[in-house]
């Protein structure tokens, strides 16, 4: 089994706070991998370090066997990234953004135009192709961001919360494109905290909590017969009581006469 992504003791701290505490993340090539964890678990920080956008304080990251920090040329040609927060070049139109991205990577103009046209059509953005990205809705931004990340046909795709704030129709489009992409042997790694989605899409899961990887492996193994949500709550330690202690006034049951 070859690995698309492997990290050794990847570590990052912000002042006294340790964001990522030396993780060994492994993702086999060709898998559809989910990186799950509660807010603040270090998912975004990890993905930023693996994609070379944030300098780690320690440890290594390899993509397809190339070290991210020693071999940036090889690595950057192989990865596609959709970071969190979705800052795109807002004053370009969707089509211009794709053209810019493709040509920045040295793809011939005619090819870029053809690919951009197809991506816009598949993503259902053809009507909005000539509008400025600054005027796009969240779902449209995610879709154009994904299109930009796919344009140069990377072998590993990193997506940070690709489904957050996306309507079901757009989400469906996104997943279909991603399915098709992984079916050809490419790798997708995406972070999320929507367990249902991860369960439905992924064949490989890494669970992060407070800067550590607490479980990692094929979906069936991590889940071990439970639902992923249940497994996740047990792994990261959800609240023990079910909120019975307070909130007695909440709900219609015991309403006092006003």
């Amino acid at each position, binding site marked *: 089994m070859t690995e698309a992504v492997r990290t050794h003791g990847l570590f990052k701290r912000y002042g006294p706070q340790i964001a990522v505490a030396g993780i060994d993340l492994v993702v086999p090539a060709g898998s559809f991998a989910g990186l799950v964890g509660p807010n603040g678990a270090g998912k975004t920080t990890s993905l930023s370090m693996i*994609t*070379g*956008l*944030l*300098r780690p304080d320690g440890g290594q990251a390899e993509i397809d066997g190339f070290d991210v920090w020693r071999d*940036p*040329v*090889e*690595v*950057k*040609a192989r*990865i596609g*990234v959709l*970071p969190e*927060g979705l*800052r*795109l*070049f*807002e*004053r*370009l*139109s969707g*089509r*211009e953004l794709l*053209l*810019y*991205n493709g*040509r*920045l*990577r*040295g793809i*011939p*103009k005619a090819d870029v135009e053809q690919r951009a046209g197809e991506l816009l059509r598949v993503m259902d953005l053809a009507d909005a192709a*000539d*509008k*400025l990205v*600054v*005027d796009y*809705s969240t779902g449209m931004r995610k879709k154009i961001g994904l299109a*930009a990340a796919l344009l140069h046909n990377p072998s590993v795709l990193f997506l940070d919360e690709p489904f957050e704030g996306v309507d079901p129709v757009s989400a469906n489009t996104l997943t279909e494109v991603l399915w098709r992409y992984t079916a050809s042997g490419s790798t997708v790694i995406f972070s999320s905290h929507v367990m249902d989605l991860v369960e439905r899409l992924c064949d490989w899961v890494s669970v992060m909590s407070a800067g550590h990887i607490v479980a990692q492996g094929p979906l069936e193994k991590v889940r071990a017969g439970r639902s992923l949500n249940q497994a996740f709550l047990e792994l990261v330690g959800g609240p023990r009581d079910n909120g019975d202690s307070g909130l007695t006034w909440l709900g219609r049951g015991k309403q006092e006469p006003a």
Partner: protein
Amino acid sequence: MNTVALFAQLKLRLLVGNLRGDIQRKLGFVFTLIMSVFVSVIGFLLMSLLRLAPHDVAASIVVVVFSAMLIGWMVVPLLAFGLDDTLDPARLSLFPLPTHRLAVGMFTASATGVWPLATLIITAGALVGLATGVGGVLLGIVAVLLQFALCLVASRLVTTALSSALRTRRGRDVLAVAAIFVVLLAQLPNLLINSDIGDPAGMLRGVAALLRWTPSGMAAHAMADGGLTGLAELAVVALVVVVVGWLWIKALSRALVTPDSSTRAASVRRGSGLVDRFVPSGPLAAVVTKELKYIRREPRYRVGWFSSVVVALVLGFSVTRSGEVGASMPILLTASAGMMIALQSANSFGIDGRSLWMNAVTMGSERGLSTDLAGRHLAGALVAAPLLALLAVGAGLFAGHPEAIVPAILIGLGALGTGFGVGSVTSVVIPYTLPERMNAFSGAAPGQGGQAFVSGLGALLGISLLSLPFVVPLLFGLLWVSVLAPFYGLLAEALGRRLGAKIGFPRLPELLAAVSRPT
């Protein structure tokens, strides 16, 4: 009364909450506090000292000051602060508040603060400076309060009426560019006074005679008058306050049910591919195309370009006025314009800001960064070169030295190239985040003011030093050196770019972090 206390508390809470944890903001607030105390004390003193002036002059001055305050209150919040938390009615729209309570609350919130207090103190200074007799004092107190209320209500009316427009992207774009016109307009009185059009006293009388019939003017006049006329005037001002307040309430209730922002977006034209005819297809062409679009579409670029040209023009203008207009004027003007334009690239990545990752994930080597910088410079030069030529021709003809036009263009291009070279280095050594919304008071994200200052100063010094080899011979009248200037500029650009890429590439993650600060 309850509402008043509630909203005053809310505003104070927000003020305190804004300060929590962030030392930079605390310092900023302390600075604001000192400034406002200073301004109110000086303002109060100056206003009360008007008592020493002849009564009619004092009255005229107060009329002008009151009107200026009113205009200031209407314009400044739009430009400098936008809509702060208590002022944006949309945030309150989910609470079950009747409109009149909301209006009272919003009024209280606007009256609570450092600058409203300063306004009140300065306005009250006029009471000391102007009011005569018991009637004058009594009317004066009412006039001060009315003027204060008028400032607040008018200010709120303007922000509320424009709030839906301000929340759209297009509205904010327009405002960003409008800000610069206001800053320029503020320079107008200065220029007028310098150009001794008439005697200041006469001008003051003229302006005051005109402004006297505005609500603020009437409040001021009533204070000076102190009689029945004054009483009548105050009645009118009170009426105006009520009407403006009523309009504001109307605007408020309309703003609460109008959708947040319009999503109607215009399409842009498809690119003409003009660049592709000159630049070989690839990353360079991509960056040039994108930068040219950004110069056209991004308000911060528009403001930058516009102000560089204006600064150069003002410089040239003041040189011209100072006496002899020689052949040096067109050269100086064009060179300074070239430098001002190039100074914008002292922080090349600032406007890309958090979008810069998109370039960063494609840059595998120093070459990538160097190409990126080259694209930015080429795009800048494509716009700057015709502009400089135009300036040189205009200045040469205006000064009556057409023979200076060609040297001026050459020197301008040299200055531009040198500036680009220096800018490549400062861009990677001292990068900083440009705030998304321009305002006249800060050019960097909170906490990065120092970097912005050092970067600008460093670039300026660097350009000046590097320009010496062709500035000195020019001072001795050796115009022929200008032939070398463009080549010198090209060399400086190439070397600076190489150095910048060498320093910048290993620091790419840090560079990215520095331009991605929250603003």
